């Protein structure tokens, strides 16, 4: 078995299993803690608030826009770019289709599209990363978990770009090895916000909704 076959085969399945099991464990663990029962007479719907809260926080409020502009731009650029690459890069579509989704496939980005989306994602990630050490607030609250998550994601993306042509097995193997490490790290660190954000937005939204508060 070649190194490439190993990182795309057994190691990938181990990493993916750890990712799924640990992420589910963490999510279920949070939900299983339950929410304190509120017996005050409601003025609105907590359930509606849960969903409204989730939607509302996608859109920044006008008064904060100027002060948070860099973060909004960096955040949206990085996340949209990353999801674009993850789901529509041609090698990813092929990999997901062949290895996980039993042949299910969808149209992939053309090469120029990949490059454009990758540039957006890198620009976003670099903005967020530069802010981590240039902004006094972020510098103070940033910890090792933030740094590991950022660097791992950066290297996964960078190695992915190197591996785009699939002309060298070693480049593809490096990318897959980093993906495996990223998958194993993901559920233990702050990268988990990918899945927990809907709980936090939903919880505050539910509290607000119950009180009949405008979101």
């Amino acid at each position, binding site marked *: 078995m070649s190194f490439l076959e190993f990182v795309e085969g057994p190691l990938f399945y181990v990493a993916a299993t750890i990712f799924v099991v640990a992420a589910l464990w963490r999510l279920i663990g949070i939900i299983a803690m339950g929410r*304190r029962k*509120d017996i005050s007479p409601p003025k609105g719907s907590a359930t509606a608030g849960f969903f409204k809260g989730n939607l509302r926080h996608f859109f920044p409020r006008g008064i*904060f826009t100027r002060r948070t502009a860099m973060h909004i731009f960096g*955040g949206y650029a990085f996340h949209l770019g990353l999801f674009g690459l993850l789901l529509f890069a041609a090698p990813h579509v092929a990999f997901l289709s062949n290895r996980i989704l039993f042949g299910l496939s969808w149209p992939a980005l053309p090469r120029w599209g990949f490059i454009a989306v990758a540039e957006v994602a890198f620009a976003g990630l670099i903005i967020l990363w530069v802010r981590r050490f240039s902004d006094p607030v972020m510098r103070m609250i940033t910890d090792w978990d933030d740094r590991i998550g950022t660097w791992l994601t950066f290297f996964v993306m960078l190695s992915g770009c190197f591996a785009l042509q699939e002309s060298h097995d070693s480049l593809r193997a490096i990318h897959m090895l980093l993906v495996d490490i990223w998958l194993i790290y993901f559920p233990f660190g702050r990268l988990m*916000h990918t899945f927990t954000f809907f*709980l936090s937005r939903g919880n*505050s939204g539910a509290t607000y909704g119950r009180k009949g508060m405008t979101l």
Partner: protein
Amino acid sequence: MSTQTKAEIATAKFLEFTDGEVASYFESCVHCGECAQACHFFLSTNDPKYTPTYKLMPMVKTYKREKAPLAKIRKMFGLAPDPVTEEELREWEPLVYDSCTMCGRCTEVCPMGIDIAGTIRKMREGYAAAGLVPEGLQRAEEYVEKTTSPMGVTLKAVEAQIKHQEKETGIPIEIDKKGADYMAMFSSLEIMAYTDTIGAYAKLFKKAGVTWTISSAAYEATNVGVQIGSGPLAKSIVKRVVDAAEELGVKHVIAPECGHAYGAIRWAGPNLIGREFKFEVIHIVELLDKLRREGRIPAGTKDPRKMTLHDPCQLIRRGGLLKEPRRLMDDSCADFVEMKGAGLTNLCCGGGGGVSANPRAAELQKAAFSLKADQLKAIKDLEAVIVPCANCRSVFEDGLDEYELDYEVIGMGELVASTLAE
């Protein structure tokens, strides 16, 4: 006898108050620091330590070490945070009490929707249990134990103020009237400094044709327990109100123009005593709006002055009473102008959440008010500001004096009463 350290007591409370809701907040924070851009303490000082999410660190550490899913695996690899120490708790105490008014503006900017204000309230439970509470709030607690009022206002003083208002308005005000429609409560500041509020109620309720009373056992609405973070104290204060209201058999209890008092009785109250009330809680602004919509307190000549409205955080952002004060303003004021960011994102006055009762935080509060002063100054030819919270009102009066601004500060009840149709 148990010899638990302060750190052990506090961390035990932190864990007790960390349910799935709080856990979801701790698990979702990505350390983006956006919350700082909404915090009046950070905005007025530029000191990163006032970043709201940073204020939660001892509780976050405790959660990550002891309760978070996968915490054991993290511990195994030496990746769990160290236990929180008393020294650390003491270092954070000013951040938890002096520099957070629990205004909730940070939730509005947070991309994850984290309720930092609500979590600070829970974190204070740990601090209060461990006896790590600022002196000013400790004193307020002592006064409450002696007199039921955080300012030491006695029943005798209340009776004297009521008599004075009866004389002023010519309307009798009954104490402990059984079966009244409404039982009104006041904050100590209203009783001692803004006494006209009592007269305004008398005038408005007479016009509306509703019966009302003031309880000799529960005239005070301020809940210092909620501000300190002491569940047992908060519960005893709520219980006193509930016992008095149910003994009198009133249909409604009116929460006064005081932000935290409203939240304490309306939203926290039933949860604190573990049952629903036999009466309905209504905020005075909500009630005046309701009576106005029913045509029972029709508006007369509007106040001609240029006025703006301050949105007390616990009424508007965290209480849901966004439209009611605006409808009353439109009816009562000929030239009503909104402040920038009015409504959900309005700036806190800087003195809520027990900050104004904490002399150690005076300078910080003053700095935070500078932002409010700037908002007011931005309105050309402003003459008066309506502040439907007695605590905010007091902070406004001090702050306007400090920044040499000459605007009249008026309560909502007084405005509505003074513009009532004959």
